[in-house]
């Protein structure tokens, strides 16, 4: 299964809400196939806040080894690959936090929304 991000989201990938849409799509496709190819070719702008919602969130849904094995990325230049690497590292750091710590986050987010 494959997703062309430029078709699904557009050339500009900076909005966390768009990232969430990408996450939902990848999650759905993972339910129907073994691998998902995420192709960023044609995307002109990519931010970590988008990737955090779109990709980082997957590490909270699936085991680390599953995400790394079943999702394959294409069409990223070296700078965006570095950014994706940081988002991955950050997600692992976050989802490695205790449930109590994550509860603290949920409360903070609710208070400030």
């Amino acid at each position, binding site marked *: 299964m494959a997703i062309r991000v430029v078709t699904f989201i557009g050339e*500009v990938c*900076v909005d966390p809400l768009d990232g969430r849409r990408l996450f939902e799509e990848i999650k759905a496709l993972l339910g129907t196939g073994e691998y998902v190819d995420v192709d960023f070719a044609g995307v002109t*702008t990519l931010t970590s*806040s988008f990737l955090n919602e779109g990709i980082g969130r997957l590490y909270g849904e699936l085991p680390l080894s599953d995400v790394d094995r079943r999702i394959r990325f294409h069409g990223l230049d070296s700078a965006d690959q*570095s950014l994706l690497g*940081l988002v991955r590292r950050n997600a692992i750091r976050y989802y490695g936090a205790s449930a109590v710590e994550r509860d*603290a*986050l949920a409360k903070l987010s609710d208070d400030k929304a």
Partner: protein
Amino acid sequence: MIAAAHVRAARVFDVRTGKPQPEALVLDANVLFFVHYPSFGTLAAVGGEPPSVYRTREYGAALKRALRAKTRLFTSATTLLEFAHIVEKVELEISWRKAGGQGAFEYKQVREQLAAQLEEIRKTVLVYVSAVRKITTIIEALHAEGTLAVWRGSCGDTSDSALAAAALREGVPDLLSDDADFLTYRDLHLFTANQAAIDLAKSVGRLG
């Protein structure tokens, strides 16, 4: 919040409306931080205080509209350094709290304590800086006289003043920021989602 008498910005726009969409926009460090930094969840999880959710949401959406409209984006070298400093500070705070640090975070003290981690943290910071540089044009070398003149006529700090001076010198008066201090700079057009700043601008007839 500053007093109404100090509101000097030419116009203030609620950026959430998407109108008007300027041809060129200068980005403040707080906007760069809200949009380009991904670890707010981790910061909150370890006991730090991330920015309000509306900030990441609204400024992300504003940046998307600007990029889709082919708005040219600028920031200043000083602002880029400020962004790097903010990210480094937060990364240090996360490391410090994860290692058991509690209470008030003292940047300088923690930076000294965690000096062995600085190289890795700064490598991380530079990845985010690169992401900013991909979408913005950097304006200025710092112009001390112009900055001091703008600073003198405002209620903002020297960093804000350097950005305002650079924006005005570049002929790009439209500035995206969550910082209400930019209300106090003459000739600037402040685009913001900061409701208190919007309300204040409305009360003195400068909104929209």
